[in-house]
């Protein structure tokens, strides 16, 4: 474990804990952004440039703003009076621990990490682009179509509301 990895991992985990436990929702959102940034830094440290930059572009650029707008539009950004723990937190912790146990068990028993790890291939963005435009062009197009449909749907919902209010 190297020093940069330790710093990044600590920041990511600490901000994730803060995102769960802070009282003010906007603070939670902002610390969650720090978690996203930490994940992006981890990808970059692993040499996955494209994934890292895409993570920053999508999560810090778009998802962050979406979350923040959703908080501002749906409820007051003041901290709630209730206790910060929900009444059923024991069940939640149990389920989380169960999921963690199953996942780590599966990963540890997997054959992929049993043998000697091969050095990662030196991937460039160009190769990713070639693959996306060649071998995986159909999934790419399907996702594009799905997103366009979602966009049109959102526009229609917004238009309908506007007409009703007049």
């Amino acid at each position: 474990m190297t020093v940069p990895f330790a710093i990044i991992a600590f920041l990511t985990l600490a901000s994730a804990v803060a995102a769960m436990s802070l009282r003010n929702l906007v603070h939670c959102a902002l610390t969650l952004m720090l978690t996203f940034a930490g994940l992006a830094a981890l990808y970059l440290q692993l040499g996955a440039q494209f994934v890292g930059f895409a993570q920053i572009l999508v999560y810090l650029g778009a998802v962050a703003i979406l979350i923040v707008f959703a908080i501002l539009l749906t409820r007051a950004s003041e901290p709630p009076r209730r206790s910060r723990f929900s009444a059923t937190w024991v069940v939640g912790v149990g389920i989380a621990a169960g999921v963690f146990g199953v996942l780590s068990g599966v990963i540890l028993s997997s054959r992929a990490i049993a043998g000697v790890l091969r050095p990662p291939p030196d991937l460039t963005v160009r190769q990713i682009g070639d693959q996306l435009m060649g071998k995986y062009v159909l999934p790419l197009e399907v996702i594009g179509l799905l997103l366009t449909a979602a966009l049109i749907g959102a526009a229609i919902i917004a238009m309908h509301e506007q007409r009703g209010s007049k």
Partner: protein
Amino acid sequence: MVETMDQIFVTLKHWLVGFAPGQCQPLFSAVLSVAAIILAFATLFAVTTLLERKGLGRIQNRYGPNRVGPCGILQPLADGVKALTKEDVIPDTADKVVHFIAPLVLVMPVLLALAVVPVGRNMAALDTDAGVLFFFAVGAATELSVFMAGWSSRNKYSLLGALRAIAQMISYEVPLILSAVTVIMAAGSLSAVRIVEAQSGYWGVIPNWYVLTPWGLAGFILFMVAATAESNRSPFDLPEGESELIAGYYTEYSGFKFALFFLGEYLGLFAVSGLGITLFLGGWHAPLPGLDWVPSWLWFFAKLLVIIAAFIWVRGTLPRLRMDQLMGLAWKFMLPMALVNIFVAGLWRFLPGGVGRWSVCSILVVGAYLLLGRLLAGRKQPGKRVYRYAE
């Protein structure tokens, strides 16, 4: 001699790095690059504020700053001292921590973005394989800073300004990135250094810059308009409208934090203009074959100053847009235009070179421009102006 002048900063850096002990050399080299970026662009920021105030004064028929130093050239220094010594007022109800962090979150990504812009031959601080993607990725963090500043101030004008700014930045990021895609398609690379290399050479005396193709010209104009909106400059300065929002999201900032916002905004302008130069104006290449003896970094900064002059000119000339006009321009005009432009750039790539390619692509770009303009203007009949509320 020519070669020495061209590479003088690179040689200087290698010479300085040589003094560091072996293991520290990569770190020391990075620190030197960062220091050079901060020094060069902060100086440019000081010069630009003076030029802007002088230029706006000239346009608005007044003198501009002329008291500090000869012809007022020491004005930026006076402004800096003023910003440093002013009291730092934080509102009582403000969210102190977020209020404090917001200006830093604005300045840091902008400095990171400047790292990938090649300011001269061998002079990109960070030459990654995905440089342009890196630029847009770190640029996305500025929206978060604007929100943090607006929300933490606990001021309705700040929040309104922040929401306006975010809506505007998200809307104009789409045409900004889509107009850059054309260049990435033509150069076949996301690396800023490769893109500049792809624009080297001359056709007779005409340089091989992408701006001198039909799609490049359309892309450059779209890119610069979107860049103006991204950096919240007039005529797209609604988020900071003094008359409507008393300066928007930085109403509650004073002293050096305000200066940091100001710095971040101008550095963002330099970064996005630098990317525009890299993508469309041939980066550090000389505009004419005979002018190669001028150092490459001088060409880059000359082009940057020309673009800044154009920005000042636009700011002094055009009135501010209305919010619905702003959104309409981004989504109804610039987005379809950028998509058509991507198609034209693809066509340019596969058609055989010659007059035929030029005319087909030009007709497509101009046709799309005229058609979109007609369609958008068609419904509105200019007539007698009706005031709904004032009468």
